[in-house]
């Protein structure tokens, strides 16, 4: 049982595990892509539904946690060993090179030699440690933390995300998820000179207890635990329509997702053969009509696929042609908004921050001044000499070998 446990733990902590799991999902993606255009969406749906796939994906953050703990422990053991200068903690595999010298020379002269080559040296009665450069260990920790956050975030997002689309209409109550009648007071779009965005969308909400809240674009605001994710803009005009065979007319509010100008939406006149196509007319001044509020609608009226009337009407105005009358006495702005409950959003952003930090640390540490360590410690039968380098290995190896030669020469001189 213990052996099985050991094998299981070895697999879980193996550095081959994450690439293998990723390759597995990549093959799945490629397989699905043969049959479907929505390969990624289908793969995500499969992971969500199939517990085996969910567990398989969960192995990646689990592996990162185990590796983080193990690598931290190994780093601390090595640090402790060098600090205390005791040979008890020295085990094979801890350093790149390890050699036992069967004699016990004085390390004092070596101290000067290593210091002269640019290494910082620390000596105790029984040991000599020399090192230079910056270790990439913090970058490694940041990277592993990033892996944990990224894949945990993906896992949370895949398994717990819920989305509900609502139309936020100016002046209308927000019916979502509450019996309390919170109301959208105002929707506005403004020019905005931001780093990434050039427009700012503002949705003002008045809660039932008189508190006013304002929601923007990004970072997403929260409402009752759900993120607000504005998707599309539109208008809700009051449409007044009459035709030669519909003299009594017809009046109702429509929700038309027709932003930006040129985008078309349509609506049926219930109980008739009429269908009206709407689009937002571009402003002649070049301004955005949604921002200025001076909106005009282009319309086409079809009766059983035959166009019977077309035209352009300012919101608030009316058009009348050949017995067809179409007016928009009132309108309100609309934002189609997704209310998203997702516990993976923040961990994924944090992961990106961790990865960026890891890269910023790793690049200079690895290429400008990598960590190199040499350690001599007095054992029972002589000296243990170990060396390790995170970069510039050949040059560091030369320093280490020269130090060993120097010890050998010292012994020969003393003999």
């Amino acid at each position, binding site marked *: 049982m213990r052996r099985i446990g050991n094998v299981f733990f070895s697999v879980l902590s193996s550095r081959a595990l994450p690439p293998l799991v990723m390759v597995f999902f990549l093959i799945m993606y490629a397989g699905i892509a043969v049959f479907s255009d929505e390969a990624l969406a289908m793969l*995500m749906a499969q992971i969500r539904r199939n517990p085996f796939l969910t567990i398989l994906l969960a192995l990646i953050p689990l592996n990162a946690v185990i590796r983080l703990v193990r690598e931290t422990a190994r780093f601390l053991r090595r640090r402790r060993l060098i600090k205390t200068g005791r040979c008890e903690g020295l085990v094979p595999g801890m350093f790149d090179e390890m050699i036992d010298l069967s004699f016990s020379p004085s390390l004092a002269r070596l101290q000067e030699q290593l210091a002269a080559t640019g290494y910082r040296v620390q000596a105790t009665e029984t040991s000599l440690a020399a090192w230079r450069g910056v270790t990439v260990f913090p970058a490694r920790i940041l990277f592993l933390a990033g892996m944990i956050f990224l894949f945990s975030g993906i896992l949370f997002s895949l398994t717990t995300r819920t989305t509900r689309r609502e139309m936020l209409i100016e002046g209308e109550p927000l019916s979502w998820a509450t019996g309390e009648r919170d109301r959208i007071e105002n929707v506005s779009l403004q020019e905005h000179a931001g780093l*990434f965005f050039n427009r700012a969308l503002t949705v003002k909400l008045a809660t039932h207890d008189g508190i006013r809240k304002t929601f923007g674009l*990004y970072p997403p605001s929260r409402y009752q635990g759900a993120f607000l994710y504005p998707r599309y803009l539109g208008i809700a005009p009051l449409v007044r329509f009459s035709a030669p065979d519909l003299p009594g007319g017809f009046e109702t509010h429509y929700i038309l997702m027709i932003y930006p100008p040129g985008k078309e939406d349509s609506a049926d006149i219930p109980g008739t053969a009429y269908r009206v196509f709407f689009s937002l007319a571009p402003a002649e001044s070049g301004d955005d009509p949604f921002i200025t509020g001076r909106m005009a609608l282009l319309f086409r009226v079809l009766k059983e696929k035959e166009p019977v009337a077309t035209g352009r009407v300012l919101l608030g105005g009316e058009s009348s042609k050949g017995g067809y009358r179409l007016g928009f006495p009132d309108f309100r702005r609309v934002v189609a908004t997704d209310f998203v409950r997702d516990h993976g*959003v923040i961990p*994924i952003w944090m992961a990106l921050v961790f990865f960026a930090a890891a890269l910023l640390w790793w690049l200079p540490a690895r290429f400008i001044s990598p960590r190199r360590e040499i350690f001599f410690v007095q054992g029972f039968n002589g000296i243990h000499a170990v060396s390790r380098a995170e970069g510039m290995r050949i040059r560091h190896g030369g320093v280490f*070998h020269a130090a060993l030669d120097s010890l050998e020469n010292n012994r020969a001189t003393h003999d």
Partner: protein
Amino acid sequence: MGALKLTVLILAWGGIIIVLGRGFSVNRLLLAVSNATGFAAGVAVGALLLSTLQGDASFAVAKAVLSALFLLHWLVSLAALYRSTGEGTTVERFQKMSNNPLSAACCSIAVGILAGTICSFRFIPQGGEVPLLTVVIVGFSGVCLTAFFFGVEQFVPKMPVPTAEVLMAIVVSFILFASSSIPRLDLFSPLVMKVMKLIHDIVHQFFESMLIPDHLFFRPEVWNYIGLLFGNRVGLWGGMLIWFTPVLLVAAAIRLERLPSVAHIRQGAERRTLLKAHIRERRTRLVAPLIAGVMLAAAVFQSRFPAVEYWDPKPLKVAATPSGSIFIPLTGEIDLKDGKIHKFLFKERGRDARFMVLQNSAGGYTVTLDACSICKPDGYGQTEGAVICYYCKTLIPLETVGKPGGCNPVPVPFMMEKNGIAIDGAALLNLWGITVQATNRVKGAAR
């Protein structure tokens, strides 16, 4: 043009034989017989596939095998890097396997079958009876070439014994080089296409998951930068990254091999000599992945600039009737029954749409846009048994033209009338508008 294709196949087969001859230290005759037998069997397998499987199925089977081989190459390269950079591990040599006659013969036969199959796809026509004479000629030529290249192999300079991954890298690169000379067996173009789709999917999903607003709110210059991710250049470079990575991994595995510990040697000169010898040997072994890289680059070149001429007629201008219908007669100025694609251009009120009509093998007609829902609308050209998307170079078998999805041309609804085809002009313009808007739009481009 035909001679060029022949040269590619001969070069690839010669390269494979020389590499196998150098890689395996077993009896030359055994290797030669295994290779020749494999090749002849491969030609027979190819002929059988082409005659028994209908439509694109035979090519799909061959491509699936090639894809599996490429994937295996990827995994072996990853494992090589893993072993090479592992702590306290050493790179095992290929010595044992290369000395084993059974494994050498099996490898040679398998590679021979693959090479023979690829050659058969080049020379044997699809469908109908198996052309025995052609099969015999192609198989016999392969056997003769095997003998010739085994003669040449003796004059090739000695190389260090390769590792399994190195041998695999070279053999796979030669196989892919050979297959890329046949457009319907080319793996690189579909790979580029898949990478474009994958990048698109990932970016789109990232935006959705991270609740990032749509392009309406972005500064145009920021959005243009994001838009670079959806171009075919990114697909091409991404495809190249995936294409060359196994070879780069093999090279990295060699380069990152730990030098042997020489700390126990107290003679500085001896230490340096030993290390120098190891470094030199490591460098020499890098030649093999370099050769593999060159062959893969040649495969990419063939894929991007195929030696094929496409039928690409100039679009004929058409107009709509007063009721808004476009009518295309079956015969007349253009004969729609010739099995070729025929392109048309419809313009109305400043809007235009390009579409094509094709008679399929069953005698029916297909009307599609001269554009797909993923790529920019650069249009299609026709080659033997397929149309090619000029933008992403993906080959679409003629049997699947008219079916939606992927890089297939977008189907257009039409009415089959007695003497021609009727298409609704407004619907056509709208469909073109949606498609072109979708492919020029950045986020959600393929929606």
